[in-house]
Protein backbone atom coordinates (compact mmCIF):
# COMPACT_ATOMS: atom_id res chain seq x y z
CA UNK A 1 0.00 0.00 0.00
CA UNK A 2 1.44 3.36 -0.95
CA UNK A 3 2.64 5.77 1.72
CA UNK A 4 0.25 8.63 0.98
CA UNK A 5 -2.75 6.40 1.71
CA UNK A 6 -1.32 5.79 5.13
CA UNK A 7 -0.60 2.10 4.68
CA UNK A 8 1.38 -0.03 7.07
CA UNK A 9 2.29 -3.66 7.48
CA UNK A 10 1.03 -5.93 10.20
CA UNK A 11 2.11 -9.55 10.06
CA UNK A 12 2.26 -9.49 6.26
CA UNK A 13 -1.13 -7.75 5.87
CA UNK A 14 -1.69 -4.10 5.05
CA UNK A 15 -3.21 -1.93 7.71
CA UNK A 16 -4.14 1.76 7.68
CA UNK A 17 -2.04 3.90 10.00
CA UNK A 18 -2.04 7.47 11.27
CA UNK A 19 -5.09 9.69 10.83
CA UNK A 20 -6.92 7.11 8.69
CA UNK A 21 -6.58 4.53 11.41
CA UNK A 22 -7.75 7.04 13.99
CA UNK A 23 -10.75 7.94 11.82
CA UNK A 24 -11.87 4.32 11.37
CA UNK A 25 -11.44 3.64 15.07
CA UNK A 26 -13.38 6.77 15.92
CA UNK A 27 -16.32 5.96 13.61
CA UNK A 28 -16.45 2.44 15.01
CA UNK A 29 -16.63 3.78 18.56
CA UNK A 30 -19.31 6.33 17.67
CA UNK A 31 -21.43 3.65 15.97
CA UNK A 32 -21.06 1.30 18.92
CA UNK A 33 -21.88 4.14 21.32
CA UNK A 34 -25.01 5.15 19.40
CA UNK A 35 -26.29 1.57 19.25
CA UNK A 36 -25.48 1.13 22.93
CA UNK A 37 -27.32 4.30 23.93
CA UNK A 38 -30.20 3.54 21.57
CA UNK A 39 -30.69 0.28 23.43
CA UNK A 40 -29.68 1.20 26.98
CA UNK A 41 -32.09 4.11 27.42
CA UNK A 42 -35.27 2.33 26.27
CA UNK A 43 -34.31 -0.89 28.04
CA UNK A 44 -33.66 0.93 31.31
CA UNK A 45 -37.08 2.58 31.09
CA UNK A 46 -38.57 -0.77 30.17
CA UNK A 47 -37.19 -2.45 33.28
CA UNK A 48 -37.77 0.37 35.72
CA UNK A 49 -41.15 1.85 34.77
CA UNK A 50 -43.58 -0.83 35.97
CA UNK A 51 -41.55 -1.23 39.15
CA UNK A 52 -42.13 2.39 40.10
CA UNK A 53 -45.71 2.66 38.92
CA UNK A 54 -48.27 3.17 41.67
CA UNK A 55 -51.42 1.16 41.43
CA UNK A 56 -54.46 3.18 40.57
CA UNK A 57 -56.73 3.37 43.62
CA UNK A 58 -60.34 3.61 42.53
CA UNK A 59 -63.29 4.64 44.66
CA UNK A 60 -65.10 1.47 45.68
CA UNK A 61 -68.72 1.25 46.73
CA UNK A 62 -68.72 -0.53 50.12
CA UNK A 63 -72.39 -0.31 50.91
CA UNK A 64 -75.38 1.84 51.69
CA UNK A 65 -75.12 4.58 54.30
CA UNK A 66 -78.19 3.10 55.96
CA UNK A 67 -76.22 -0.07 56.73
CA UNK A 68 -74.07 1.85 59.18
CA UNK A 69 -75.86 2.37 62.52
CA UNK A 70 -75.03 5.45 64.53
CA UNK A 71 -72.49 4.90 67.29
CA UNK A 72 -71.85 1.26 66.43
CA UNK A 73 -68.89 0.50 64.10
CA UNK A 74 -69.81 -1.76 61.24
CA UNK A 75 -67.56 -3.97 59.21
CA UNK A 76 -68.32 -3.59 55.52
CA UNK A 77 -67.07 -6.20 53.07
CA UNK A 78 -66.59 -5.36 49.47
CA UNK A 79 -64.98 -6.91 46.44
CA UNK A 80 -62.23 -4.90 44.89
CA UNK A 81 -60.47 -5.53 41.61
CA UNK A 82 -56.74 -5.70 42.00
CA UNK A 83 -54.55 -5.08 38.98
CA UNK A 84 -51.35 -7.06 39.40
CA UNK A 85 -49.31 -6.37 36.29
CA UNK A 86 -51.24 -8.05 33.49
CA UNK A 87 -53.35 -10.02 35.98
CA UNK A 88 -56.67 -8.81 37.27
CA UNK A 89 -57.99 -10.47 40.35
CA UNK A 90 -60.94 -9.94 42.62
CA UNK A 91 -60.22 -9.67 46.28
CA UNK A 92 -62.52 -9.35 49.23
CA UNK A 93 -61.58 -6.51 51.53
CA UNK A 94 -63.23 -5.28 54.70
CA UNK A 95 -63.27 -1.80 56.21
CA UNK A 96 -64.65 -0.49 59.49
CA UNK A 97 -67.18 2.32 59.12
CA UNK A 98 -68.16 4.55 62.06
CA UNK A 99 -71.05 6.99 61.67
CA UNK A 100 -70.36 10.37 63.20
CA UNK A 101 -72.91 12.62 64.95
CA UNK A 102 -72.92 14.96 61.92
CA UNK A 103 -73.94 12.10 59.62
CA UNK A 104 -70.49 11.76 58.07
CA UNK A 105 -68.74 8.42 58.19
CA UNK A 106 -65.18 7.69 59.25
CA UNK A 107 -63.68 4.65 57.62
CA UNK A 108 -60.79 2.77 59.21
CA UNK A 109 -58.36 0.45 57.50
CA UNK A 110 -59.04 -3.09 58.82
CA UNK A 111 -55.44 -3.65 59.90
CA UNK A 112 -54.00 -3.01 63.33
CA UNK A 113 -51.27 -0.35 63.15
CA UNK A 114 -48.96 -2.56 65.22
CA UNK A 115 -48.23 -5.49 62.91
CA UNK A 116 -51.17 -5.57 60.52
CA UNK A 117 -53.46 -8.10 62.19
CA UNK A 118 -57.19 -7.82 61.68
CA UNK A 119 -58.91 -6.31 64.73
CA UNK A 120 -62.53 -6.61 65.83
CA UNK A 121 -65.13 -4.47 67.60
CA UNK A 122 -66.02 -5.41 71.14
CA UNK A 123 -69.62 -4.20 71.40
CA UNK A 124 -69.78 -4.51 75.18
CA UNK A 125 -66.63 -2.61 76.01
CA UNK A 126 -67.08 -0.27 73.03
CA UNK A 127 -63.51 -0.76 71.93
CA UNK A 128 -61.60 -2.11 68.92
CA UNK A 129 -59.42 -5.01 70.04
CA UNK A 130 -56.58 -6.65 68.19
CA UNK A 131 -56.31 -10.37 69.02
CA UNK A 132 -52.62 -10.65 68.12
CA UNK A 133 -50.83 -8.51 70.69
CA UNK A 134 -53.61 -6.92 72.64
CA UNK A 135 -53.73 -3.44 71.15
CA UNK A 136 -56.94 -1.60 72.03
CA UNK A 137 -58.44 1.42 70.24
CA UNK A 138 -61.45 3.53 71.08
CA UNK A 139 -64.27 4.33 68.68
CA UNK A 140 -62.28 7.32 67.38
CA UNK A 141 -59.41 5.00 66.55
CA UNK A 142 -57.14 6.34 69.30
CA UNK A 143 -54.80 3.90 71.02
CA UNK A 144 -56.07 2.97 74.46
CA UNK A 145 -53.71 0.13 75.31
CA UNK A 146 -51.18 -2.25 73.84
CA UNK A 147 -48.20 -1.91 71.54
CA UNK A 148 -49.89 -0.07 68.63
CA UNK A 149 -47.68 2.92 67.71
CA UNK A 150 -50.39 5.11 66.16
CA UNK A 151 -54.17 5.44 65.92
CA UNK A 152 -56.12 3.34 63.42
CA UNK A 153 -55.54 4.45 59.81
CA UNK A 154 -58.29 6.48 58.20
CA UNK A 155 -59.25 5.72 54.63
CA UNK A 156 -60.48 8.41 52.23
CA UNK A 157 -64.24 8.14 52.01
CA UNK A 158 -67.18 10.03 50.58
CA UNK A 159 -70.91 9.68 50.35
CA UNK A 160 -72.69 9.78 47.01
CA UNK A 161 -76.42 9.18 46.59
CA UNK A 162 -76.62 7.47 49.94
CA UNK A 163 -73.77 5.09 49.11
CA UNK A 164 -70.48 4.99 50.95
CA UNK A 165 -67.39 5.09 48.69
CA UNK A 166 -63.91 4.27 49.92
CA UNK A 167 -60.41 4.25 48.50
CA UNK A 168 -58.78 1.14 49.85
CA UNK A 169 -55.17 1.62 50.91
CA UNK A 170 -52.65 -0.21 52.97
CA UNK A 171 -50.23 1.39 55.38
CA UNK A 172 -46.92 0.34 56.78
CA UNK A 173 -47.49 -1.19 60.22
CA UNK A 174 -45.26 -0.74 63.23
CA UNK A 175 -44.29 2.93 62.82
CA UNK A 176 -45.57 6.09 64.42
CA UNK A 177 -45.90 7.79 61.04
CA UNK A 178 -48.56 6.98 58.50
CA UNK A 179 -46.73 5.59 55.48
CA UNK A 180 -48.84 4.41 52.56
CA UNK A 181 -47.73 1.20 50.89
Amino acid at each position, binding site marked *: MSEHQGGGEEGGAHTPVGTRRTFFGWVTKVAAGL*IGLGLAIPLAGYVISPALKRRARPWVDVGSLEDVPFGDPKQLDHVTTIQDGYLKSQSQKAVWAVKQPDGQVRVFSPMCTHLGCGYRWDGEEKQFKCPCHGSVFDIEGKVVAGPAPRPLDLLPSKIENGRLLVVFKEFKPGTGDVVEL
Partner: protein
Amino acid sequence: MRIYQWLDSRLNLKPVEQTLLDEPIPGGASWIYVFGSATLFLFLLQAVTGMFLALYYAPTPDHAYDSIQFIEEQVTFGAFVRGLHHWGASAMVVAIGLHMLQAFLYGAYKPPREVMWMVGVVLFLLVMAFAFTGYLLPWDQTAYWATQIGLNMVGTVPVVGEFLMRVMRGGEVLGALTLSRFFAVHVLFLPALLVGLIAAHLFILRRVGPAGPWTDARASLGSETFYPRQVYMDAVVMLVVFAVISALALLVPFPLTDKADPSDTSFVPVPEWYFLFYYELLKYVHGPLEPLATWILPMGVILIMLLWPFIDRNPARNPIRRPVALGAGVVFLVVVLSLLGLSVRNLYAVPRIDPAVARGKALYAGFGCAGCHRIHGAGGAVAPDLSFIGDTRPEQAWHLKHFKDPQSVSPGSFMPKFPLTDPQLNELTSYMLSLKKTP
Protein backbone atom coordinates in the same frame (compact mmCIF):
# COMPACT_ATOMS: atom_id res chain seq x y z
CA MET B 1 -7.03 1.98 29.34
CA ARG B 2 -5.17 1.62 32.62
CA ILE B 3 -7.48 -1.20 33.60
CA TYR B 4 -6.68 -2.84 30.26
CA GLN B 5 -2.94 -2.48 30.90
CA TRP B 6 -3.34 -3.87 34.39
CA LEU B 7 -5.24 -6.86 33.07
CA ASP B 8 -2.84 -7.29 30.15
CA SER B 9 0.15 -7.45 32.45
CA ARG B 10 -1.53 -10.37 34.20
CA LEU B 11 -3.54 -12.13 31.51
CA ASN B 12 -1.29 -11.42 28.52
CA LEU B 13 -4.14 -10.05 26.39
CA LYS B 14 -2.10 -8.52 23.57
CA PRO B 15 -1.76 -11.76 21.55
CA VAL B 16 -5.51 -12.34 21.89
CA GLU B 17 -6.20 -8.83 20.67
CA GLN B 18 -3.86 -9.35 17.74
CA THR B 19 -5.47 -12.64 16.82
CA LEU B 20 -8.91 -11.03 16.87
CA LEU B 21 -8.14 -7.76 15.14
CA ASP B 22 -5.29 -8.51 12.76
CA GLU B 23 -7.02 -11.34 10.93
CA PRO B 24 -5.90 -10.92 7.32
CA ILE B 25 -8.64 -10.26 4.77
CA PRO B 26 -7.54 -11.31 1.28
CA GLY B 27 -7.89 -8.50 -1.24
CA GLY B 28 -8.67 -5.98 1.51
CA ALA B 29 -11.75 -4.89 3.44
CA SER B 30 -14.98 -4.54 1.49
CA TRP B 31 -18.61 -3.52 1.98
CA ILE B 32 -19.63 -6.84 0.39
CA TYR B 33 -18.33 -8.70 3.47
CA VAL B 34 -20.61 -6.99 5.98
CA PHE B 35 -23.60 -9.37 5.85
CA GLY B 36 -22.18 -11.96 8.24
CA SER B 37 -21.45 -9.29 10.84
CA ALA B 38 -24.89 -7.77 10.26
CA THR B 39 -26.50 -11.18 10.88
CA LEU B 40 -24.44 -11.67 14.03
CA PHE B 41 -25.40 -8.19 15.22
CA LEU B 42 -29.09 -8.94 14.61
CA PHE B 43 -28.79 -12.18 16.54
CA LEU B 44 -27.37 -10.26 19.50
CA LEU B 45 -30.15 -7.67 19.18
CA GLN B 46 -32.76 -10.47 19.16
CA ALA B 47 -31.10 -12.05 22.18
CA VAL B 48 -31.09 -8.80 24.15
CA THR B 49 -34.63 -7.71 23.25
CA GLY B 50 -35.84 -11.28 23.80
CA MET B 51 -34.37 -11.40 27.30
CA PHE B 52 -36.10 -8.15 28.13
CA LEU B 53 -39.42 -9.31 26.68
CA ALA B 54 -39.16 -12.38 28.90
CA LEU B 55 -39.22 -10.05 31.94
CA TYR B 56 -42.96 -9.59 31.47
CA TYR B 57 -44.05 -12.42 29.20
CA ALA B 58 -46.02 -15.35 30.63
CA PRO B 59 -46.06 -18.50 28.45
CA THR B 60 -49.53 -19.80 29.30
CA PRO B 61 -52.71 -19.51 27.23
CA ASP B 62 -54.36 -17.74 30.17
CA HIS B 63 -51.85 -14.96 30.38
CA ALA B 64 -49.66 -14.82 27.25
CA TYR B 65 -51.93 -12.43 25.37
CA ASP B 66 -52.55 -10.20 28.38
CA SER B 67 -48.86 -10.07 29.19
CA ILE B 68 -48.00 -8.93 25.65
CA GLN B 69 -50.76 -6.36 25.83
CA PHE B 70 -49.28 -5.22 29.13
CA ILE B 71 -45.88 -4.82 27.44
CA GLU B 72 -47.47 -2.89 24.57
CA GLU B 73 -49.62 -0.57 26.64
CA GLN B 74 -48.32 -0.30 30.18
CA VAL B 75 -44.55 -0.68 30.02
CA THR B 76 -42.51 2.37 29.05
CA PHE B 77 -40.83 1.63 25.68
CA GLY B 78 -42.59 -1.76 25.75
CA ALA B 79 -43.99 -1.35 22.25
CA PHE B 80 -40.53 -0.24 21.07
CA VAL B 81 -38.75 -3.25 22.56
CA ARG B 82 -41.35 -5.62 21.10
CA GLY B 83 -41.12 -3.76 17.79
CA LEU B 84 -37.33 -4.19 17.75
CA HIS B 85 -37.75 -7.92 18.35
CA HIS B 86 -40.45 -8.23 15.69
CA TRP B 87 -38.67 -6.24 12.97
CA GLY B 88 -35.31 -7.64 14.06
CA ALA B 89 -36.62 -11.12 13.23
CA SER B 90 -37.51 -10.03 9.70
CA ALA B 91 -34.22 -8.21 9.33
CA MET B 92 -32.37 -11.30 10.44
CA VAL B 93 -33.99 -13.38 7.72
CA VAL B 94 -33.02 -10.70 5.17
CA ALA B 95 -29.46 -10.46 6.49
CA ILE B 96 -28.89 -14.19 6.55
CA GLY B 97 -30.35 -14.43 3.04
CA LEU B 98 -27.98 -11.78 1.73
CA HIS B 99 -25.09 -13.39 3.56
CA MET B 100 -25.82 -16.75 1.92
CA LEU B 101 -26.26 -15.08 -1.45
CA GLN B 102 -22.87 -13.41 -1.13
CA ALA B 103 -21.21 -16.65 -0.07
CA PHE B 104 -22.88 -18.39 -3.00
CA LEU B 105 -21.94 -15.73 -5.54
CA TYR B 106 -18.33 -15.67 -4.34
CA GLY B 107 -18.09 -19.47 -4.36
CA ALA B 108 -17.10 -19.22 -0.71
CA TYR B 109 -18.53 -22.70 -0.04
CA LYS B 110 -15.83 -24.37 -2.13
CA PRO B 111 -12.92 -26.29 -0.58
CA PRO B 112 -11.68 -25.79 2.07
CA ARG B 113 -14.84 -24.04 3.31
CA GLU B 114 -17.47 -26.76 2.81
CA VAL B 115 -18.05 -27.30 6.51
CA MET B 116 -18.45 -23.56 7.13
CA TRP B 117 -21.18 -23.48 4.44
CA MET B 118 -22.94 -26.52 5.93
CA VAL B 119 -22.89 -25.08 9.43
CA GLY B 120 -24.25 -21.89 7.87
CA VAL B 121 -27.17 -23.75 6.29
CA VAL B 122 -28.00 -25.31 9.66
CA LEU B 123 -27.83 -21.83 11.23
CA PHE B 124 -30.30 -20.63 8.60
CA LEU B 125 -32.66 -23.50 9.45
CA LEU B 126 -32.36 -22.65 13.14
CA VAL B 127 -33.32 -19.05 12.36
CA MET B 128 -36.43 -20.30 10.57
CA ALA B 129 -37.21 -22.49 13.59
CA PHE B 130 -36.85 -19.40 15.78
CA ALA B 131 -39.32 -17.61 13.54
CA PHE B 132 -41.84 -20.45 13.64
CA THR B 133 -41.72 -20.96 17.41
CA GLY B 134 -41.68 -17.24 18.17
CA TYR B 135 -44.74 -16.58 16.06
CA LEU B 136 -47.03 -18.53 18.41
CA LEU B 137 -45.96 -16.77 21.61
CA PRO B 138 -48.28 -13.70 21.50
CA TRP B 139 -51.19 -16.16 21.49
CA ASP B 140 -53.40 -13.97 19.31
CA GLN B 141 -55.58 -15.21 16.48
CA THR B 142 -52.84 -14.86 13.86
CA ALA B 143 -50.36 -16.71 16.04
CA TYR B 144 -52.76 -19.49 16.89
CA TRP B 145 -54.10 -20.20 13.41
CA ALA B 146 -50.79 -19.78 11.59
CA THR B 147 -49.20 -22.28 13.97
CA GLN B 148 -52.18 -24.59 13.58
CA ILE B 149 -51.57 -24.64 9.83
CA GLY B 150 -47.83 -25.05 10.23
CA LEU B 151 -48.34 -28.06 12.49
CA ASN B 152 -50.93 -29.58 10.18
CA MET B 153 -48.40 -29.34 7.37
CA VAL B 154 -46.00 -31.42 9.44
CA GLY B 155 -48.88 -33.88 9.82
CA THR B 156 -48.99 -34.49 6.06
CA VAL B 157 -45.58 -36.16 6.08
CA PRO B 158 -46.24 -39.86 5.38
CA VAL B 159 -45.89 -42.45 8.13
CA VAL B 160 -44.20 -40.29 10.77
CA GLY B 161 -46.16 -37.06 10.17
CA GLU B 162 -48.89 -37.65 12.71
CA PHE B 163 -46.34 -38.65 15.34
CA LEU B 164 -44.09 -35.66 14.61
CA MET B 165 -47.02 -33.26 14.72
CA ARG B 166 -48.16 -34.58 18.07
CA VAL B 167 -44.68 -34.35 19.53
CA MET B 168 -44.29 -30.77 18.32
CA ARG B 169 -47.76 -29.86 19.58
CA GLY B 170 -47.26 -31.66 22.88
CA GLY B 171 -50.67 -33.32 22.69
CA GLU B 172 -53.88 -33.74 20.81
CA VAL B 173 -54.69 -30.08 20.44
CA LEU B 174 -52.83 -26.81 20.16
CA GLY B 175 -52.93 -25.51 23.70
CA ALA B 176 -51.09 -24.93 26.95
CA LEU B 177 -48.53 -27.66 26.35
CA THR B 178 -47.82 -26.40 22.85
CA LEU B 179 -47.28 -22.86 24.07
CA SER B 180 -44.92 -23.85 26.86
CA ARG B 181 -42.83 -26.11 24.64
CA PHE B 182 -42.67 -23.52 21.87
CA PHE B 183 -41.58 -20.99 24.47
CA ALA B 184 -38.91 -23.27 25.93
CA VAL B 185 -37.61 -24.16 22.47
CA HIS B 186 -37.61 -20.50 21.41
CA VAL B 187 -35.80 -19.10 24.45
CA LEU B 188 -33.67 -22.00 25.72
CA PHE B 189 -33.06 -24.84 23.26
CA LEU B 190 -32.64 -22.90 20.03
CA PRO B 191 -30.41 -20.16 21.50
CA ALA B 192 -28.11 -22.80 23.01
CA LEU B 193 -27.85 -24.58 19.65
CA LEU B 194 -27.45 -21.33 17.76
CA VAL B 195 -24.67 -20.00 19.99
CA GLY B 196 -22.78 -23.28 19.67
CA LEU B 197 -23.09 -23.32 15.90
CA ILE B 198 -22.19 -19.63 15.57
CA ALA B 199 -19.05 -20.42 17.55
CA ALA B 200 -18.32 -23.31 15.20
CA HIS B 201 -18.99 -21.11 12.15
CA LEU B 202 -16.57 -18.44 13.40
CA PHE B 203 -14.01 -20.99 14.53
CA ILE B 204 -13.95 -22.50 11.04
CA LEU B 205 -13.71 -19.00 9.55
CA ARG B 206 -10.61 -18.32 11.60
CA ARG B 207 -9.08 -21.70 10.78
CA VAL B 208 -9.52 -21.48 7.01
CA GLY B 209 -9.69 -17.69 6.64
CA PRO B 210 -12.14 -15.63 4.61
CA ALA B 211 -12.48 -16.57 0.95
CA GLY B 212 -11.75 -13.10 -0.40
CA PRO B 213 -12.20 -11.98 -4.02
CA TRP B 214 -12.87 -14.52 -6.74
CA THR B 215 -10.23 -13.20 -9.15
CA ASP B 216 -6.58 -13.94 -8.58
CA ALA B 217 -5.73 -10.44 -9.76
CA ARG B 218 -7.60 -8.80 -6.89
CA ALA B 219 -6.53 -11.39 -4.38
CA SER B 220 -2.91 -10.77 -5.32
CA LEU B 221 -3.27 -7.16 -4.13
CA GLY B 222 -2.46 -8.64 -0.76
CA SER B 223 -4.50 -8.80 2.39
CA GLU B 224 -5.54 -6.20 4.88
CA THR B 225 -6.08 -6.53 8.61
CA PHE B 226 -9.65 -6.94 9.90
CA TYR B 227 -9.17 -3.89 12.14
CA PRO B 228 -9.70 -1.02 11.53
CA ARG B 229 -11.28 -0.77 8.08
CA GLN B 230 -13.47 -3.90 7.98
CA VAL B 231 -14.52 -3.31 11.60
CA TYR B 232 -15.43 0.25 10.65
CA MET B 233 -17.54 -0.96 7.71
CA ASP B 234 -19.26 -3.58 9.86
CA ALA B 235 -19.95 -0.99 12.56
CA VAL B 236 -21.44 1.50 10.10
CA VAL B 237 -23.72 -1.19 8.66
CA MET B 238 -24.78 -2.31 12.13
CA LEU B 239 -25.67 1.28 13.00
CA VAL B 240 -27.70 1.65 9.80
CA VAL B 241 -29.48 -1.66 10.45
CA PHE B 242 -30.22 -0.58 14.02
CA ALA B 243 -31.53 2.79 12.82
CA VAL B 244 -33.82 1.16 10.26
CA ILE B 245 -35.23 -1.36 12.74
CA SER B 246 -35.71 1.35 15.37
CA ALA B 247 -37.56 3.51 12.85
CA LEU B 248 -39.80 0.58 11.91
CA ALA B 249 -40.42 -0.24 15.58
CA LEU B 250 -41.38 3.37 16.26
CA LEU B 251 -43.33 4.16 13.12
CA VAL B 252 -44.99 0.94 12.02
CA PRO B 253 -47.35 -0.30 14.69
CA PHE B 254 -47.52 -4.03 15.04
CA PRO B 255 -50.79 -4.58 16.87
CA LEU B 256 -52.00 -7.83 18.30
CA THR B 257 -55.04 -9.34 16.65
CA ASP B 258 -57.80 -10.68 18.91
CA LYS B 259 -56.88 -13.15 21.61
CA ALA B 260 -56.60 -16.70 20.25
CA ASP B 261 -60.01 -18.32 20.02
CA PRO B 262 -59.79 -22.02 19.08
CA SER B 263 -63.52 -22.12 18.29
CA ASP B 264 -63.41 -19.30 15.75
CA THR B 265 -62.64 -21.09 12.52
CA SER B 266 -63.57 -18.09 10.38
CA PHE B 267 -60.21 -16.47 11.04
CA VAL B 268 -57.88 -16.48 8.03
CA PRO B 269 -54.30 -16.39 9.24
CA VAL B 270 -51.43 -15.04 7.21
CA PRO B 271 -47.94 -16.32 7.88
CA GLU B 272 -44.96 -14.02 8.19
CA TRP B 273 -43.63 -12.79 4.84
CA TYR B 274 -40.62 -15.10 4.93
CA PHE B 275 -42.93 -18.13 4.94
CA LEU B 276 -45.26 -16.64 2.33
CA PHE B 277 -43.56 -18.18 -0.71
CA TYR B 278 -44.13 -21.58 0.81
CA TYR B 279 -47.73 -20.72 1.73
CA GLU B 280 -48.30 -19.66 -1.88
CA LEU B 281 -46.77 -22.85 -3.24
CA LEU B 282 -49.24 -24.95 -1.25
CA LYS B 283 -52.14 -23.24 -3.00
CA TYR B 284 -51.14 -24.77 -6.32
CA VAL B 285 -50.59 -28.30 -5.15
CA HIS B 286 -53.55 -30.34 -3.96
CA GLY B 287 -54.69 -33.90 -3.53
CA PRO B 288 -52.25 -36.75 -3.70
CA LEU B 289 -49.48 -34.37 -4.78
CA GLU B 290 -49.77 -32.32 -1.59
CA PRO B 291 -46.99 -34.12 0.32
CA LEU B 292 -44.74 -33.23 -2.62
CA ALA B 293 -45.11 -29.56 -1.77
CA THR B 294 -45.39 -29.86 1.99
CA TRP B 295 -42.31 -31.93 2.61
CA ILE B 296 -40.61 -33.64 -0.38
CA LEU B 297 -39.77 -30.36 -2.09
CA PRO B 298 -38.65 -28.51 1.06
CA MET B 299 -36.62 -31.52 2.21
CA GLY B 300 -35.05 -31.76 -1.23
CA VAL B 301 -34.17 -28.07 -1.28
CA ILE B 302 -32.70 -28.24 2.22
CA LEU B 303 -30.65 -31.31 1.33
CA ILE B 304 -29.39 -29.71 -1.86
CA MET B 305 -28.45 -26.55 0.05
CA LEU B 306 -26.68 -28.55 2.72
CA LEU B 307 -24.75 -30.73 0.28
CA TRP B 308 -24.23 -27.99 -2.31
CA PRO B 309 -20.40 -27.87 -1.84
CA PHE B 310 -20.29 -31.54 -2.87
CA ILE B 311 -22.79 -31.18 -5.71
CA ASP B 312 -21.01 -28.25 -7.32
CA ARG B 313 -17.56 -29.77 -8.05
CA ASN B 314 -16.43 -26.97 -10.35
CA PRO B 315 -13.26 -25.60 -8.71
CA ALA B 316 -13.67 -22.09 -10.21
CA ARG B 317 -14.93 -19.32 -7.93
CA ASN B 318 -15.42 -16.63 -10.58
CA PRO B 319 -19.20 -16.54 -11.36
CA ILE B 320 -18.48 -16.21 -15.08
CA ARG B 321 -16.89 -19.63 -15.07
CA ARG B 322 -19.73 -21.22 -13.08
CA PRO B 323 -22.75 -20.99 -15.41
CA VAL B 324 -24.51 -24.09 -14.06
CA ALA B 325 -24.25 -23.11 -10.39
CA LEU B 326 -25.21 -19.50 -11.08
CA GLY B 327 -28.09 -20.63 -13.29
CA ALA B 328 -29.40 -22.93 -10.55
CA GLY B 329 -29.09 -20.12 -8.02
CA VAL B 330 -30.92 -17.67 -10.25
CA VAL B 331 -33.74 -20.15 -10.94
CA PHE B 332 -34.12 -20.82 -7.22
CA LEU B 333 -34.23 -17.10 -6.43
CA VAL B 334 -36.68 -16.34 -9.23
CA VAL B 335 -39.04 -19.11 -8.08
CA VAL B 336 -38.93 -18.05 -4.42
CA LEU B 337 -39.30 -14.35 -5.16
CA SER B 338 -42.09 -14.91 -7.71
CA LEU B 339 -44.05 -16.99 -5.22
CA LEU B 340 -43.47 -14.30 -2.61
CA GLY B 341 -44.56 -11.59 -5.04
CA LEU B 342 -47.66 -13.53 -6.09
CA SER B 343 -48.57 -14.18 -2.51
CA VAL B 344 -48.19 -10.54 -1.50
CA ARG B 345 -50.30 -9.46 -4.48
CA ASN B 346 -53.03 -11.98 -3.65
CA LEU B 347 -53.05 -10.90 -0.05
CA TYR B 348 -53.61 -7.29 -0.93
CA ALA B 349 -56.12 -8.15 -3.65
CA VAL B 350 -58.40 -9.86 -1.16
CA PRO B 351 -59.91 -7.30 1.19
CA ARG B 352 -59.24 -8.28 4.75
CA ILE B 353 -62.51 -9.27 6.33
CA ASP B 354 -63.48 -7.42 9.46
CA PRO B 355 -64.03 -10.11 12.11
CA ALA B 356 -67.33 -8.44 13.03
CA VAL B 357 -68.53 -8.98 9.47
CA ALA B 358 -67.62 -12.67 9.64
CA ARG B 359 -69.51 -13.03 12.92
CA GLY B 360 -72.46 -11.13 11.46
CA LYS B 361 -72.49 -13.53 8.55
CA ALA B 362 -72.57 -16.46 10.96
CA LEU B 363 -75.52 -14.85 12.77
CA TYR B 364 -77.30 -14.35 9.45
CA ALA B 365 -76.97 -18.07 8.85
CA GLY B 366 -77.77 -18.99 12.46
CA PHE B 367 -81.04 -17.07 12.63
CA GLY B 368 -82.16 -18.48 9.29
CA CYS B 369 -82.42 -15.06 7.63
CA ALA B 370 -81.93 -16.78 4.29
CA GLY B 371 -85.34 -18.35 4.73
CA CYS B 372 -86.85 -15.06 3.53
CA HIS B 373 -83.95 -12.93 2.27
CA ARG B 374 -81.76 -13.57 -0.71
CA ILE B 375 -78.09 -12.67 -1.17
CA HIS B 376 -76.53 -13.18 -4.61
CA GLY B 377 -79.18 -15.71 -5.57
CA ALA B 378 -79.11 -17.75 -2.38
CA GLY B 379 -82.13 -17.71 -0.08
CA GLY B 380 -85.85 -17.04 -0.13
CA ALA B 381 -87.60 -14.37 -2.12
CA VAL B 382 -90.41 -13.23 0.18
CA ALA B 383 -88.38 -10.45 1.78
CA PRO B 384 -86.08 -7.79 0.24
CA ASP B 385 -82.97 -8.95 -1.59
CA LEU B 386 -79.94 -8.00 0.52
CA SER B 387 -77.18 -8.46 -2.08
CA PHE B 388 -76.36 -4.74 -2.13
CA ILE B 389 -78.10 -3.56 1.04
CA GLY B 390 -74.88 -1.76 2.06
CA ASP B 391 -75.36 0.56 -0.93
CA THR B 392 -79.12 1.03 -0.66
CA ARG B 393 -79.21 1.36 3.14
CA PRO B 394 -75.80 2.68 4.19
CA GLU B 395 -76.94 4.14 7.54
CA GLN B 396 -75.79 2.08 10.50
CA ALA B 397 -78.38 3.63 12.81
CA TRP B 398 -81.22 2.53 10.53
CA HIS B 399 -80.09 -1.10 10.69
CA LEU B 400 -79.63 -1.06 14.46
CA LYS B 401 -83.14 0.32 14.91
CA HIS B 402 -84.56 -2.02 12.33
CA PHE B 403 -83.12 -5.14 13.92
CA LYS B 404 -84.45 -4.12 17.33
CA ASP B 405 -87.94 -3.47 15.99
CA PRO B 406 -88.45 -3.84 12.24
CA GLN B 407 -91.86 -2.14 12.30
CA SER B 408 -90.42 1.03 13.86
CA VAL B 409 -88.63 2.00 10.65
CA SER B 410 -90.49 -0.13 8.17
CA PRO B 411 -94.22 -0.03 9.05
CA GLY B 412 -96.14 -3.03 7.87
CA SER B 413 -93.04 -5.23 7.69
CA PHE B 414 -93.66 -8.84 8.67
CA MET B 415 -90.08 -9.39 9.76
CA PRO B 416 -90.05 -10.77 13.31
CA LYS B 417 -88.05 -9.27 16.17
CA PHE B 418 -85.06 -11.46 16.88
CA PRO B 419 -83.60 -11.77 20.38
CA LEU B 420 -80.25 -10.15 19.58
CA THR B 421 -77.68 -8.96 22.10
CA ASP B 422 -76.00 -5.60 21.52
CA PRO B 423 -72.76 -7.12 20.14
CA GLN B 424 -74.86 -9.32 17.85
CA LEU B 425 -76.81 -6.28 16.65
CA ASN B 426 -73.54 -4.56 15.78
CA GLU B 427 -72.12 -7.62 14.05
CA LEU B 428 -75.21 -8.23 11.98
CA THR B 429 -75.25 -4.55 11.02
CA SER B 430 -71.55 -4.71 10.06
CA TYR B 431 -72.37 -7.64 7.81
CA MET B 432 -75.29 -5.79 6.19
CA LEU B 433 -73.12 -2.73 5.55
CA SER B 434 -70.44 -4.90 3.95
CA LEU B 435 -72.85 -6.10 1.26
CA LYS B 436 -71.92 -3.69 -1.50
CA LYS B 437 -71.31 -3.70 -5.23
CA THR B 438 -67.73 -2.60 -4.71
CA PRO B 439 -66.19 -3.95 -1.53
